[in-house]
């Protein structure tokens, strides 16, 4: 296994009865890369991601995350990854500070680490004055940015983002992507699924899943050349047209 690859997947498959949700996919993700994971609803993105996060056991194939095998070392994997889901994932009835403290606490971080880093994060997010406000009272965009900061608070090697910008306005999305770039620059590998094709252009490399298989995998520029398309949107439509599976 090459040390430069933080995620390495070979022939990964997940079947639920006769239904093959993820069909023999293979790819590698380099350290510090922003890896876009695209596909229509029901293409198998979430199932694949769940297997990589140690939430679900693969039926077949090999996969290592942060150097740990997904079959046997999923506890080790969990310690080394961050995760942010498409649903809003903070507690609305806890304050900003309490949420940070809680998530850092379940990753076993020390009080001193939490205190110091909380200050830094709050400053970055311009939330210092809102530190003791309930998260439920913040606008959605702020919540999403806070959720991302919380997901990488324990300084994981990899962060999995499952449609992180759903329902967020374009300006906040732009800011959100700036945070992703910054995290990647700090050596955190970002594995992101998204619906927005303009966001796909921000990724280092993209894989597009159709009916449980990876149909294309390359940089946005190469993909557009290959499919003779002007935008990622066009690439996606050309591929997605082949899909036989309907929504979910």
């Amino acid at each position: 296994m090459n040390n430069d690859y933080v995620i390495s997947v070979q022939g990964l498959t997940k079947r639920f009865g006769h239904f093959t949700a993820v069909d023999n996919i293979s790819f590698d993700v380099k350290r510090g890369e922003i890896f876009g994971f695209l596909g229509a609803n029901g293409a198998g993105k979430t199932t694949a991601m769940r297997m990589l996060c140690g939430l679900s056991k693969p039926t077949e194939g090999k996969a290592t995350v942060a150097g740990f095998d997904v079959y046997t070392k999923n506890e080790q994997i969990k310690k080394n990854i961050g995760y942010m889901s498409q649903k809003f994932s903070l507690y609305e009835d806890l304050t900003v500070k309490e949420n940070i403290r809680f998530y850092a606490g379940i990753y076993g971080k020390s009080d001193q680490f939490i205190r110091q880093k909380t200050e830094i994060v709050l400053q970055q997010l311009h939330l210092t004055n809102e530190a003791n406000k309930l998260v439920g009272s913040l606008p959605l965009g702020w919540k999403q940015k806070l959720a991302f900061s919380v997901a990488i608070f324990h300084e994981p090697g990899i962060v999995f983002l499952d449609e992180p910008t759903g329902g967020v306005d374009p300006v906040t999305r732009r800011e959100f992507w700036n945070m992703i770039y910054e995290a990647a620059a700090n050596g955190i590998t970002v594995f992101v699924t998204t619906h927005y094709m303009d966001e796909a252009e921000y990724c280092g490399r993209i894989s597009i899943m159709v009916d449980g298989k990876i149909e294309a995998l390359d940089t946005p520029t190469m993909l557009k050349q290959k499919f003779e398309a002007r935008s990622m949107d066009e690439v996606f439509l050309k591929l997605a047209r082949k899909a036989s599976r309907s929504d979910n």
Partner: protein
Amino acid sequence: MRQFSSLVRKEFYHILRDKRTMFILLGMPIAQIILFGFALTNEVKNARIAIFDQSKDIATNTLISQISSSRYFDVEDNLHSYKEIEETFRKGSIKLAIVFPENFNNDLEHFNKAQVQLVADASDPNTASALSNYATSIIRDYEKRITNDRKLPYTIKTEMRMLYNPQLKGSYSMVPGVMAMVLMLVCTLMTAITVVKEKELGTMEILLVSPLRPLKIITAKAVPYLMLSIVNIATILLLSVFVLEVPINGSLLLLVFESILFTLTCLAFGLLISASTDSQQTAMFISLTGMFLPTIMLSGFMFPIENMPLPLRILSNIVPAKWYYSIVNAVMIKGADLTIVWKETLVLMGIMAFLLFLSIKKFKIRLA
């Protein structure tokens, strides 16, 4: 340990921030004790009764005067024939008739044995049984008193025309019932809902992706409710001792131990429900039908189990509240110790272990 304390702290925030729910959780035992202790009491006072005295001797006279001087009865009428009894009942003016046969004192003096007949209006079974019991106890009192004067014991045989539920004093049996109900509501319903709520919100995913073990997540959820239940147990016991004047005759320690055991059983059931459902509504529905109704119906708290048909009697054995109710009843009211209630305690432990095993297994299956 650091992870666990973070989790528990978070659960406390959830409970403390939701003022309305907390108010209900802590206020409910108070409301129920007052409701069941005072408003819904089985106790009957100043019930109108009639007496058909065919003997009219010194013994019947003493008994009648004792009955009429008690606060439970008002002697409304003196009757002169059996026919009249039925007529007075039909008019609805009396609840109970006491019939002394001829030669009452004579029988008592010569055979040391006499008979009284109690005829009660069974259209209201609870009142009827309560009244027959009061009357019986007055007669027993009298019997004991005259026996003291003589060497041979006197027996006055009371014959009840209608025998129903022998529940005597209202609040005595209510307290154990209310305890079972409140604990069950707090533990089963609230635990089930709080776990399912996280599933609905999507935060459960985050917890599962974290290095936390599922068992830790679940136990951390149960800790605050266990503590809340202990507060509730204390409230109920204090209220019943100082407001309802129900004594704690047995060991307080044993009572608390049994209550915690029951609480754990309820928590295990709540966790089982939360592991099997995904929506708060379903969780609430299952808790109410699966736990609340059986607790009320089949624990012996509202309706005596002995009077139920055999299938229901068998079914009542799997209701944890039935065992808890009989333990509390025995320990609190009758002053029993562990040598008497060990069997019930073991059954309760068995049910708890079974539910816990099932919920952990179910939780693991869902993760795979």
